């Protein structure tokens, strides 16, 4: 089976996020009120082949923690969707 994987990489709480802070400070200038908690992360997309969703999830999570994120400063949410459903 083939899956599309999204790895949503976020800075852990307490880790400096100057990009998020800068964007948040700019937002009120445009007239938008009440916007807070802006953070900038990254999304990494790939496809993976595995026998089933469980194996694909385990492999993707492992790739995320061992390489795509640095656990000292980042967390990630890994989301899989089956490409076969699209057929």
């Amino acid at each position, binding site marked *: 089976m083939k899956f599309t994987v999204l790895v949503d990489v976020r*800075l852990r709480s307490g880790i*400096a996020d*100057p990009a998020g802070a*800068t964007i948040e400070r700019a937002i009120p200038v445009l007239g938008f009120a009440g916007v807070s908690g802006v953070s900038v992360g990254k999304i990494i997309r790939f496809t993976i082949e595995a026998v089933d969703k469980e194996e694909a999830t385990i492999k993707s999570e492992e790739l995320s923690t061992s*390489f795509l994120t*640095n656990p000292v*400063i980042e967390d990630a949410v890994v989301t899989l969707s089956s490409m076969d459903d699209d057929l």
Partner: protein
Amino acid sequence: MSGVVGVVVFPGSNCEMDCIESITQLGGEGRLLWHGDEDLCGVDAVIVPGGFAHGDYLRPGAIARFSPVMTEVSRFAADGGPVVGICNGFQVLTEAGLLPGALQKNDGLKFLCQPAILRVESSDSLLTSRAATGDRLSIPINHFEGNYTCDEETLMALRDEDRVILRYIDNPNGSVDNIAGVCNEGRNVVGLMPHPERACNELLGSSDGSVLLGSLLDLVT
């Protein structure tokens, strides 16, 4: 007869020739090591220099650890060989698991390129053996991601084991506990954000970097 210090060159490194020049000025011999090499050519010490290894893609230092030479650097370090990571080299060594913690973006949103006054916290390291605890050194910094961070347990271990070797006097980047440089448990791997190779000649505003690189040369002579 001085030993040979290998300086690793990744695509995107940019401080390797400064390292070679300062090692040569201090009476040592430097040798460039290409990141694709699978051996260290018998060098007596290794410097991972500053720059933007592999473009800093993904995270600073994250891709560099897959370069073939890093397998050998890790083996060399495991055997007790002296390894120094400067700036981006420090980031590479944390990503490679040779040093604890990580370097996050500076507090204050600025790329910093300025002299920094450092306090030597321990003379028991391969970079500080020529110094005494409490000595102050003026060494420039040049980074955006130099804000050292680690979990509380790691920080306690670094303190208890005398592994914080350099601290900033006036913390420029928000590093936890003012940390500018640390070493590993074996004390043979050192990482620091300031650039001693840019402070080995009074023409550059400071020659205090020669205390650090001179200490390394003492070890391999």
